[in-house]
């Protein structure tokens, strides 16, 4: 299937680079209306297919994150084009200014009304993939075949590759109209010791908007409880080699999954 060039999918609006509390990029009205509507439709259909509103949530492995999550796989990536594509991977890597490997982890997140606060973290952690990646393709995480957190593979002939999250993206979609006080925003923090309530900056979950940032020792952020409306988003991480990140921030700054 012929793919629209990303340039023709974007709305043409300018994006914004913020310096505080850590460098990050934001954009609203990211895609043209029909592109956004397709993404939202596919997201909603996926929630319906998995009876998400019925089964509740907290299906993910991290009990601190009160959300229903579903990883995007090669079979579902096309539904959420352009996110899980080499073009998009290269675009956001260039915008943030980091050398990335082509490995992408990501998924769909759904927070029902009243979901608990997340915790303040920086996303600078390792991830395991079922093989290396070339210069023009991508390799998606495959949690069933190669555990993203541990690198344990179902097939013993697979040689897993360990890389580090280096670019994070959250794209908000399929949400009701948002207003201050509704919560469900992404709080940005100066330190991991800040209280969740006292975010230095807040990114509201407005449809067709996004935040992108480099995962660094200082990129502290957290989901904040959504008091009034559901909160839905697509999340995505691009990765860099352990050597690249270690040289930049020190190996000790890279977290392992616990």
């Amino acid at each position: 299937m012929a793919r629209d060039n990303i340039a023709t999918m974007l709305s043409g609006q300018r994006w914004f680079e913020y310096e505080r509390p850590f460098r990050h990029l934001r954009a609203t009205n990211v895609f043209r209306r029909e592109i956004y509507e397709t993404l939202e439709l596919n997201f909603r259909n996926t929630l319906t297919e998995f009876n998400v509103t019925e089964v509740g949530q907290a299906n993910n492995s991290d009990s601190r994150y009160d959300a229903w999550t579903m990883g995007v796989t090669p079979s579902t990536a096309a539904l959420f084009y352009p996110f899980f594509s080499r073009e998009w991977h290269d675009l956001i890597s260039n915008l943030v200014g980091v050398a990335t490997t082509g490995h992408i982890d990501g998924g769909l997140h759904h927070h029902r009304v009243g979901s608990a606060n997340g915790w303040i973290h920086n996303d600078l952690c390792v991830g395991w993939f079922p093989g290396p990646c070339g210069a023009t393709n991508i390799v998606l995480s495959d949690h069933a075949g190669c555990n993203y957190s541990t690198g344990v593979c179902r097939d013993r002939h697979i040689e897993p590759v360990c890389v580090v999250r280096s670019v994070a993206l959250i794209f908000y979609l399929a949400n009701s109209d948002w207003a201050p006080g509704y919560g469900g925003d992404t709080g940005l923090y100066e330190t991991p010791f800040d209280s969740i309530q006292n975010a230095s900056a807040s990114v509201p979950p407005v449809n067709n908007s996004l935040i992108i940032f480099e995962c660094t020792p200082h990129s502290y952020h957290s989901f904040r409880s959504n008091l009034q409306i559901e909160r839905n988003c697509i999340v995505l991480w691009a990765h860099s080699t352990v050597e690249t990140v270690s040289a930049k921030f020190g190996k000790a700054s890279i977290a392992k999954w616990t």
Partner: protein
Amino acid sequence: MRRVCVVTGAAGKLGSRICERLSADYNILGVYHQNLPSQFDSQLVQSFDPLTRETVQCKSLSLPYLIKADLKKADDQKRIVEVCLARFGKIDLLVNAAADIRFYGELKYTWSHLASVQDQLFLNAIAPVLLASSFVDYFWKKSAEQNRQFNRNIINVSSVSGLNVYPGFGQGFYSASKAALNYLTCHLASEYENIAIRANAICPVDFPGTIATEAVVDEIVRLDSSKESGKVFLLDEGGSRATN
């Protein structure tokens, strides 16, 4: 030489537009409190084309410089003045555009909102006077001649609610705060006439709506270049006219 303008309420619709438009000709110090202004380029936020990564810095010789401050705190007010003088060496125009525009309801419920209405009165009427006085104390009192030469002045953004009573909206304290600002503006003009600092207030009708935000910015630009002082201007569909 570029004029230096301090704008409070830089994250608001009007404050943002003032910063954005005046930055072509003025050096701007924008003051915000809670929300970081993102409608114009500054040292903290810059827009770019995601496909080319090109920024628009070339449009403005000097990006607005933003500082976070709580106008209800004396130390923050002093810091605004100190940062302005440290960065630009002078101040030519102070635009007090920060305001609490909420309506707190009928006056019989004042006890329920006492802290809020006190804050509103302070922010809307007293804080502009304190900031103007700080600039006088730190800088403007030094030279009436220079103040006259550079046509230095204060513009307080008030409201038509400070001129008229609109029953049934619960805007008593908002209205009172703007009426107080109008009178205080006239007193500022009177008290600082001896050091050649002008002061005026503008009272727009609702914007954007009955008039465009751009019309309010136009009026600020007009007043800055005028010789008017001690006037309260109503700004509506018919344009601008002095009410005193």
